């Protein structure tokens, strides 16, 4: 072993290393995609359908062309390649041609010299619509009572999960029907991009805020009928994503306008347009029936899940399999009878949002666990501990949980976290439900405590070869990393530097621009980048380290296996040699690219059986709320959580994920919902779609459970999604505890508490 160790404080794995984009971001110097700018650029804008369902009789663009400053007006007729795009099924038109299927569907786009000119040009386009009845009832999509609104029919996917004795009836049976509203990702940085046409007019470069550069590239190239190498993407700074940037929004429109005008095109949505321009979390209706032994042992789960996918498929089929395969929650259960549908409607399209189908299933199964606890005379904690899943347990899909599964520990360690102080007799009005603006009376306020526990799959499922590529170069003691991993705020840029510092013993780690100049890193979603792109960066750095060791070994006549990195030195573990990495790498360039693949998964069969998921993470939440039952006002006082993270690679980044996820789950629990009426959004603005503010944020007390995951390259599980999943049912349960109301729906609205 090394005889000395470096005592210098370094920012490797396990430290709260600071993000390299931090200072530029706080100084306003970090370039978000909306900050991109080019000489001679035009502004692009999109005309959208005002109807949820209509036939297009004609489109007259002449009025727009007549306006000074308008350079181009394009419709479906101008799309040179494939007329549709989509992540799983390519069913969404670049522009609607014959029929519009949701309010906000793109019909035309313009390029003009000023955003205001573009706005007037859109207003001058005359679209003659024959308005049709909209399909807005998911059950009508299933029962066939509504004519197919899309050539593929009205059911995007149906998936059953059938396991065990289908006639089993438990000693104790509880059931309920639950609803989850449509949540918006509400990332702060609105959709924006800058497209630069190549000089020959045959290709385009796009600066774009996205979650997956290569998937965008593939879809854009097909619609433009260009080879992928003529569509080059560079990540513009991304102002949050949360699933809402997985699908195409303005990418094809922006590139096409650039090719048509041969000028740079900037497109930027406003907030209302953003609500129309990206997909949302699926609203869901879920029936569940739980069977248990008298002592509370869970035996069978029955469920029927209906997800409203809206007008186009997006990732609905994958969201559905997440929902149907997670109905048991983090609990042992032998028997399952699950039927799930993802359907089309003339509502806005739905797809990925943090938690991806598991959020919906979890609200239902955790509500059920509380009912079961009541029926069996157990506490919410005891029913969950009694049934807690362990490594080696078999899921209702037949898959064995090979992941570390510290469910009971998550629950126990959450329970051990301190409870908040009681509400004082004369509290500051800011602390009581409704805050200063509304008038909850102290004497009316009741406190409640509720629990939620969840399981979440990590990475993509069902046979998808989900890989990530990274490149590492080492020269003169400086490492340079290249990857296409979308940095959306989560902090992969700092994690990548930490990995290189630890593996290679360097302090300076430079990052190349994030672009399609290197192979795909897959999507920044599904809690997958620490595992996948982290694995790729780790692999590339290790290969470079092997080369470095071979050089040092050759120079000193040693076996390279004896060498190791200690601090910033290469050391002989069996001798006295110590060479600084900077010296060992002087005058050479060691350059390696590595592709990390996770183990293969399988598709589900017709009975929902198969090893469809890669790995799982677990978390427990305990929520404490104050409620004024007469006014229906809620203040979430505290959320306690213990999360199974595998290994903490950056404590500061990790707590940020936990707290941020909790705030989003709180939003779904008590305030966030896109309200629809006959297919139209009633609240597409931040005035009417309420987001948690600093005064809504609860105190968070958190513990991270570190049991390194053997499958994970760095021992770390993905941590992005679990925080937002079980906090929602925990808060709903706490409100139930305070009010005695059934509250089968989130978000819980004041009228649900007062009249529910």
């Amino acid at each position: 072993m090394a005889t000395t160790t470096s005592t210098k404080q370094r920012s490797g794995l396990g430290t709260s290393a600071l993000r390299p984009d931090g200072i530029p971001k706080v100084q306003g110097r970090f370039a978000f995609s909306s900050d991109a700018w080019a000489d001679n650029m035009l502004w692009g804008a999109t005309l959208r359908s005002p109807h949820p369902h209509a036939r297009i009789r004609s489109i007259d663009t002449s009025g727009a062309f007549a306006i000074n400053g308008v350079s181009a007006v394009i419709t479906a007729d101008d799309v040179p390649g494939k007329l549709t795009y989509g992540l799983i099924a390519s069913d969404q038109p670049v522009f609607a041609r014959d029929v519009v299927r949701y309010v906000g569907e793109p019909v035309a786009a313009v390029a003009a010299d000023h955003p205001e000119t573009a706005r007037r040009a859109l207003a001058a386009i005359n679209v003659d619509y024959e308005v049709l009845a909209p399909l807005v009832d998911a059950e009508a999509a299933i029962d066939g009572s509504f004519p197919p609104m899309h050539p593929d029919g009205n059911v995007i996917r149906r998936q059953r999960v059938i396991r065990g004795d289908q006639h089993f009836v438990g000693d104790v049976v509880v059931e309920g029907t639950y609803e989850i509203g449509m949540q918006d990702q509400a990332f702060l940085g609105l959709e924006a991009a800058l497209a630069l046409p190549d000089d020959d007019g045959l290709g385009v470069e796009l600066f774009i805020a996205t979650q997956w550069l290569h998937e965008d590239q593939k879809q854009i190239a097909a619609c433009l009928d260009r080879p992928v190498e003529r569509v080059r993407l560079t990540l513009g700074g991304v102002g949050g994503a949360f699933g809402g940037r997985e699908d195409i929004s303005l990418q094809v429109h922006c590139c096409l306008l650039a090719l048509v005008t041969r000028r740079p095109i900037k497109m930027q949505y406003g907030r209302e347009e953003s609500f129309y321009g990206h997909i949302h979390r699926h609203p869901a209706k879920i029936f569940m029936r739980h069977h248990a032994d008298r002592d509370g042992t869970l035996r069978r789960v029955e469920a029927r899940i209906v997800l409203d996918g809206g007008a186009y498929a997006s990732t609905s089929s994958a969201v559905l399999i997440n929902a149907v395969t997670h109905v048991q929650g983090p609990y042992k259960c032998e028997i399952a009878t699950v039927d799930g549908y993802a359907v089309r409607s003339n509502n806005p399209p739905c797809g990925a949002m943090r938690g991806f189908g598991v959020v919906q299933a979890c609200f239902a199964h955790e509500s059920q666990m509380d009912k079961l606890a009541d029926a069996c005379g157990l506490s919410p904690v005891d029913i969950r501990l009694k049934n807690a899943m362990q490594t080696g347990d078999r899921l209702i899909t037949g898959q064995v949980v090979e992941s570390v599964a510290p469910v009971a520990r998550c629950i126990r360690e959450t329970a051990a976290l301190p409870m908040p102080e009681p509400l004082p007799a004369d509290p500051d009005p800011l602390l009581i439900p409704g805050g200063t603006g509304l008038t909850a009376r102290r004497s009316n306020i009741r406190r409640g405590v509720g629990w939620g526990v969840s399981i979440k799959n990590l990475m993509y499922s069902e046979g998808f070869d989900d890989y990530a590529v990274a490149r590492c170069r080492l020269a003169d003691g400086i490492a340079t990393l290249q990857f296409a991993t979308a940095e959306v705020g989560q902090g992969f840029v700092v994690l990548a530097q930490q990995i290189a510092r630890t593996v290679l013993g360097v302090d300076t780690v430079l990052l190349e621009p994030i672009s399609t100049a290197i192979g795909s890193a897959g999507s920044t979603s599904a809690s997958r980048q620490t595992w996948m792109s982290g694995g790729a960066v780790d692999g590339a750095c290790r290969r470079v380290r092997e080369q470095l060791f071979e050089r040092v070994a050759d120079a000193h006549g040693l076996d390279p296996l004896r060498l190791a990195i200690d601090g910033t030195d290469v050391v002989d573990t069996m001798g006295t040699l110590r060479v600084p990495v900077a010296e060992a790498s002087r005058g050479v360039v060691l350059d390696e690219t590595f592709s990390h693949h996770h183990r293969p998964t399988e598709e589900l069969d017709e009975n929902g059986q198969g090893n469809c998921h890669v790995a799982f993470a677990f978390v427990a939440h305990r929520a404490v709320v104050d409620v004024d039952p007469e006014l229906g006002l809620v203040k979430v006082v505290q959320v306690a959580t213990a999360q199974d993270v595998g290994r903490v690679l950056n404590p500061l980044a990790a707590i940020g994920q936990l707290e941020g996820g909790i705030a989003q789950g709180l939003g779904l629990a008590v305030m966030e919902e896109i309200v629809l009426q006959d297919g139209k959004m009633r609240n597409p603005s931040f005035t009417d779609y309420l987001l948690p503010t600093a005064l809504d944020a609860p105190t968070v007390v958190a513990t991270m459970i570190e049991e390194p995951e053997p499958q994970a390259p760095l021992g770390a599980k993905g941590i992005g999604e679990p925080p937002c999943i079980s906090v929602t049912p925990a808060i709903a349960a706490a409100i139930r505890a305070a009010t005695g109301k059934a509250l089968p729906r989130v978000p819980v609205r004041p009228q649900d508490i007062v009249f529910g």
Partner: protein
Amino acid sequence: MSNEFYRLTVNGVQHEVRDAWAGESLLYVLRERLGLPGTKGACEQGECGSCTVLMEGEAVCSCLVLAATAVDAEITTVEGLSVDGEPTDVQQSFVDAGGVQCGFCTPGLIVAVHHLLDRNANPSELEIKEAISGNICRCTGYGRIFAAVEQARDQRRATESR
């Protein structure tokens, strides 16, 4: 469009805005005409605080201010807070305490926190929460932002008591 021009004083520098449509917001003019994209727009309704700037020392949502009405005001944006490129105490605290994730809300928050600490050197936890409750952050859940503001507050107090 008109051939008129007006002058804006931003971060101590006087700019002429020519040939501008009178309907442009201060946010638009800062970002698109004056080359100061540090101020962000995220809601256009004064709900999210991303576009917060100081006008005559008061924190305002620049999306709600018509640029042409700001001609006589001293305007400070996030770009104008640093001296010689060095981060301010508030800016450094946001980085150190983990208050920055995607960073889109950050410029508005930085301006709002400077405004708070310049008025009230010793804000309580609740005063901090109230002061930044007009700035929406979607990533952090605010916990690390509170920590950042408390760090900046405590550092200022420590410096002053020396």
